[in-house]
């Protein structure tokens, strides 16, 4: 077996999948309300009214999964907090990685400075996800609980819709990079088992590999 290093703790994987599965369910049920053409598809859950309630239940899980992941002293929570601190700290090395995103996306390669645990592209994706999640959660609860016409409620609608649609666009690219892209999809195993190929880690996160990951090597 090829050598592997430990990349994602159980806590991080839990939060990732809570977020991911909940987002897909929320997107599907949300589109039923948002887009008339999608309404017939809601029959798989028993109609639009059932779907609206599912949307609310899953929204709570979406919110809780996110919050719980950051709480406590466990390794998972520590790693989640570290992820947050890492990704909002966007520096020149990150920019120099992210600027070649288009080239890498279409299978080319350009050298980039050694990256930490999260590279420039991942940091951008993470920041969009954090921002989008905060906005969509806030606007969603306003839509759920606000009563009567108010500016707050009126503005919650376009914000909720914009976050949903742009996060869906981001998700499509994320799925491609994680599953279909011949180079970066080596990370896919990491989000299931926590372990990624050591060679891949060295090539993509040289700084992290040298400073931390190397010590976890197995295989």
């Amino acid at each position, binding site marked *: *077996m*090829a050598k592997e290093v430990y990349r994602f703790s159980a806590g991080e994987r839990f939060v990732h999948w809570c977020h991911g599965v909940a987002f897909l369910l929320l997107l599907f049920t949300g589109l039923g309300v948002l887009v008339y053409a999608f309404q017939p598809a809601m029959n798989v859950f028993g109609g639009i009214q059932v779907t609206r309630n599912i949307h609310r239940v899953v929204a709570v899980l979406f919110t809780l999964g996110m919050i719980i992941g950051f709480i406590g002293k466990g390794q998972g929570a520590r790693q989640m907090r570290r992820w947050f601190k890492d990704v909002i700290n966007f520096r020149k090395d990150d920019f120099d990685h992210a600027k070649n995103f288009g080239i890498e*996306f279409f299978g080319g390669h350009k050298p980039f400075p050694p990256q930490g645990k999260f590279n420039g592209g991942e940091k951008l994706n993470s920041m969009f996800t954090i921002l989008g999640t905060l906005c969509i959660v806030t606007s969603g609860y306003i839509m759920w609980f606000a009563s009567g016409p108010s500016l707050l409620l009126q503005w919650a609608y376009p914000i909720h*819709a*914009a976050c949903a*649609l742009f996060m869906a*666009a981001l998700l499509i690219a994320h799925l491609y990079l994680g599953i*279909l892209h*011949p180079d970066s999809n080596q990370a896919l195993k990491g989000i299931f088992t926590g372990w990624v190929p050591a060679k891949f880690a060295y090539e993509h996160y040289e700084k992290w590999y040298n400073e931390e990951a190397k010590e976890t090597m197995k295989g």
Partner: protein
Amino acid sequence: MARKMVFIDTSLCTGCKACSVACKAWNDLPAEKTQRISSYQTQADFTPNTWTYVRFREEYKDKKMRFNMLKLQCFHCADPACMKACSSQAIYKTESGYTLIDKDKCIGCGYCAANCPWGVPKIDEAANKAYKCTGCIDRVESGMKPACAQTCQPGAIQFGDYDEIMPQAQARVAELQLTNPKAHLYGNELMGGTTYVYLLQDRPDAYGLPLNPTTPISLTLWKDIVYPLGGIAIGASAAAITCGVIVNLVRGNYANRAKNIAASHDEGGK
């Protein structure tokens, strides 16, 4: 059917509330326990069983008091914000100028209620459907007046073809303006032109009406900008990944990848 108009002349209204009762009688809406809100007003807002009511404002000037009485119901706008907001295609316009809710299509989301500049449509929580004044479309389509217009004793509610009623309304304003320069029509130039048009004897806010009701900017942003841009973003993303897969195939990156993995497995085996 020709465009209809309902002209509500507040200068003739006596505040008797018979319009509200007639509406209930025709539309099978049971009476509700009321309480005094202020002045002679006994209804705070629309309810699933009250689609029209009279709002009272007392205005004091030079030691004289005047009732600003306003029969409220749906305005039936030509360009309704509720219809723009509805995601279920449940709100539609009739040729006669009415704005109606298709209860079978309505899912009770409340987007209409949140976006009407007059706060007319509301959600009936028990039925989980939006409701509002139907303009007695069933009567109108059978050649009758709306129930409120039919019953109004002082003739403050005039109903007919737009082309016929509008000149009457304008003549009435001109007549009143001789003694009250504040008299004006409210509604005919708002939201694309409303089917229910008022003659007001003072500024709209003296009746608790918004001065400049418009489609909320947030609604225009949502439906005319966020939707198309969001659609484009999703389409562009899907197109990009399709190109990505094709380009990677053409470049032989998938084949190389398989070779590399085989090589590293060999390495691992050593």
